[in-house]
């Protein structure tokens, strides 16, 4: 259906009307600002570079919603958030400024706990109970999956406690990396075993 003339005119018209990158950046910034002011920025996100690779950070108006490792595939994670939480998802670095700052301090060894509003809606039931107990394991310490199951009120639910850690929507911030196997080996980790080792080494626990 496209005639050669069509293509030619399209290129011709696109020339003088072509928006530059600077213009698009300005318009995007204005959109994020207007969306936030209108209460339409349901999920804002950015990514940061860390010693454990690029981390995706996403937050609702209530608080930090998701931290994701590169191995989880950031595009896939954003698509999941769009489906589960709201499709009104925009890159909005300013919303994540405080989170990025605290993570920078943590990776520089200057911060041992996080002081951030969290939105835990991606976790529910027993898993959420387990996540709620994780911050009781202090910086530089570790605990076993069995101990976490007991702390969450179900000593026999060791596998469920392990799966709560494996599906933690807020790794690093909610310290599932401090939960290891009873025999002292690291066990699995959502960011991969190398990332778990890096975090525990940073904290002086490994």
């Amino acid at each position, binding site marked *: *259906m496209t005639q050669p*003339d*069509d293509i*030619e*005119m*399209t*290129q*011709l*018209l*696109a*020339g*003088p*009307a*072509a*928006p*530059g990158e600077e*213009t*698009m950046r*300005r*318009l*995007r910034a*204005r*959109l994020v600002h*207007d*969306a936030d002011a*209108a209460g*339409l920025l349901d*999920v804002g*996100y950015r990514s940061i570079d860390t010693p454990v690779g690029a981390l995706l950070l996403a937050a609702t108006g209530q608080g930090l919603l998701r931290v994701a490792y590169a191995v989880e595939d950031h595009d896939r994670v*954003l*698509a999941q*958030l*769009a*489906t589960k939480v*709201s*499709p*009104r*998802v*925009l*890159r909005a670095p300013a919303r994540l400024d405080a989170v990025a700052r605290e993570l920078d301090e943590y990776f520089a060894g200057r911060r041992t706990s996080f002081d951030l509003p969290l939105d835990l809606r991606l976790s529910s039931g027993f898993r959420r109970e387990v996540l709620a107990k994780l911050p009781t394991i202090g910086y530089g310490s570790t605990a076993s999956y069995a101990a976490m199951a007991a702390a969450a009120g179900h000593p026999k639910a060791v596998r469920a406690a392990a799966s709560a850690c494996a599906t933690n929507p807020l790794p690093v911030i909610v310290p599932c990396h401090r939960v290891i196997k009873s025999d002292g080996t690291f066990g699995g980790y959502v960011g991969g075993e190398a990332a778990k080792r890096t975090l525990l080494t940073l904290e002086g626990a490994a």
Partner: protein
Amino acid sequence: MEREPFEKIVDRYGPTVLRVCRAVVGPAAAEDAWSETFLSALQAYPGLRPGSNIEAWLVTIAHRKAIDQGRAQARRAVPAGDLPERPGRDGIPEASDLDLWAAVKALPLKQRECVAYHYLAGLPYTEIAGIVGGTPDAARRAASDGIAALRQVYPGPRQETGHREPARERGAQS
């Protein structure tokens, strides 16, 4: 049913919608029109039926915003000097871009809309008729009249009409 993050919609269609806004309401009002279009689209996005033609949906919103905001400005005489970005790419001489841009502005609104929605947004005339009103044939005629007027200003780089001399002469410098 998976939903795409709105960010992807901005990535994919943002530049095209801005081109359409510039052609329809002019560069001065285009950024306001774009901003209102995407804010309005963000609000409505969760209710958009899956499988919808997103580009047509955005152009429809942009069209309504242009009616709301742009027409009063567009009706006033628009001074020609107010160009958006640096023109002149792909070997098209800049002077012709200026002429072409001025010619787009000089088109009657309906022709401008139909040219922009078809040639910049790539929408079929059936969709365009739904947006601007009237029949697909009328939309096609308006676009083709608009293109004919633009061709008077800029005949295009086609070989058979390539009667211009190249701007640069080879071997001019020693």
